[in-house]
């Protein structure tokens, strides 16, 4: 699956960089490097709930570096086939 982290202005201000670093770490931690393709994307139109993360079609709201692991485990990891 493809996971895209929004790096639009609004999300960038809210910490896209940290979320990307955290995602890289989590993907390695849970051993799904060959299952998840991590990418960046410009504004996904979900600015009020940034940082936005797209897991294929599913959108994950309000990500930040502290809740990243929780969101990853509840909303992204279960979608990995």
């Amino acid at each position, binding site marked *: 699956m493809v996971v895209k982290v929004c*790096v639009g*202005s*609004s999300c*960038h*201000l809210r910490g896209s960089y940290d979320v990307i670093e955290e995602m890289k770490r989590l993907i390695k931690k849970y051993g799904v490097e060959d299952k998840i393709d991590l*990418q960046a*994307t*410009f*504004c996904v139109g979900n600015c009020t709930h940034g940082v936005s993360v797209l897991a294929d079609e599913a959108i994950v709201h309000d990500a930040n570096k502290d809740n990243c692991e929780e969101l990853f485990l509840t909303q992204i990891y279960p979608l990995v086939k």
Partner: protein
Amino acid sequence: MALCLESGYTSLNKKNEELCGDRVESIVSGDYTTLVLADGLGSGVKANILSTLTSKILCTMVSNNIAIEDCVETILQSLPVCKVRGVAYSTFSVIHMNSRGQGYLFEFDNPQAILIRGCKCRDFDREGMEILGKTVYKTALDLQAGDIVVVMSDGVIHAGIGMTLNLGWQRPEVMEFLDNNVKPGMSARAVACLLAGVCNDLYLGKPGDDTTVAAVKVREKLNVSLMIGPPVDKSKDDFYISRFLSGEGKKVVCGGTSSQIVARHLKTSVRASFDFPDKDVPPIGFIDGIDLTTEGVLTMRRLLELSEKYVSTSDLTPKTFTKKDGASLLAQMLFEEATDVHFYVGQSINAAHQGLPIDITMKLKLVESLAANLKKMGKNVAIDYD
């Protein structure tokens, strides 16, 4: 290809002086650019007055095609006589040429000008002429695209005397340094700053004399069109984008939404890069057919900071940008490569940005300040608000 001239200079003040005794004055009048570098006798206030008078008078007169003899006579009669030294004196170098590189160079007592052609230095073939007992050297200029004329005050060849070097470095060493360090595509300002920077190093950061380098380059025009922000009227997106794309030269798109509508118009997609060469500047993107795609307001803000440094005539940070973040890439393209910049500013409001430091008023303000700095750099700037 249409040619044009660009010019730039960097000045270092003698240590502990607030005023520089060197002065660069330039006027663009029609197809002709006139640039004067004058170095007044002494330093501080006195030198500043002498060089200011000399450069202003010369620049105005020469740009109006008045014979050099008359210009020199006017200066000699107008300069105040120094009480200590009993003379009225200021050196000068005058470049007066059109956009095809044809014109004249006049020199009086400044270090001899250097011609940089194909990144290699050479001398001008100059001839002396007597004007009121002074020897003024005259060179008929017939330059090619890419040629750079470098003029300087004597602070350049005196750099380092008694500090890092016993006798300073001489003109041949200055030329050798330029041979080794001037890169193709460097702007006039970048070359001036490069040479002034090494002088400052030789002086160990405490110049023993006012030091000024000015350069004029004959170059090809390059137009850059920059779109930032989507237009207010969504139904006309395609109209605005085809207008933006129809211009000549390079194309830049700044902003997430803007890049999406441009990509849609070009029937392709935006790919965002994953690299953060600089943590504070969002990553760039890629659209086939667009030369550079970046994020909007945050990148602009950094770009404005870079432009402040770039226009400062005393700032010695190198003027070429090698970093790979969006703002540095934009700076290289707009400051160093472009001669004409056309902004297409969309005024559509992104509701999610209001209240954040990235809202529409901020964006408009940034574009305005940036445009002002680009004008200071000598660029032709146009702005369309859509």
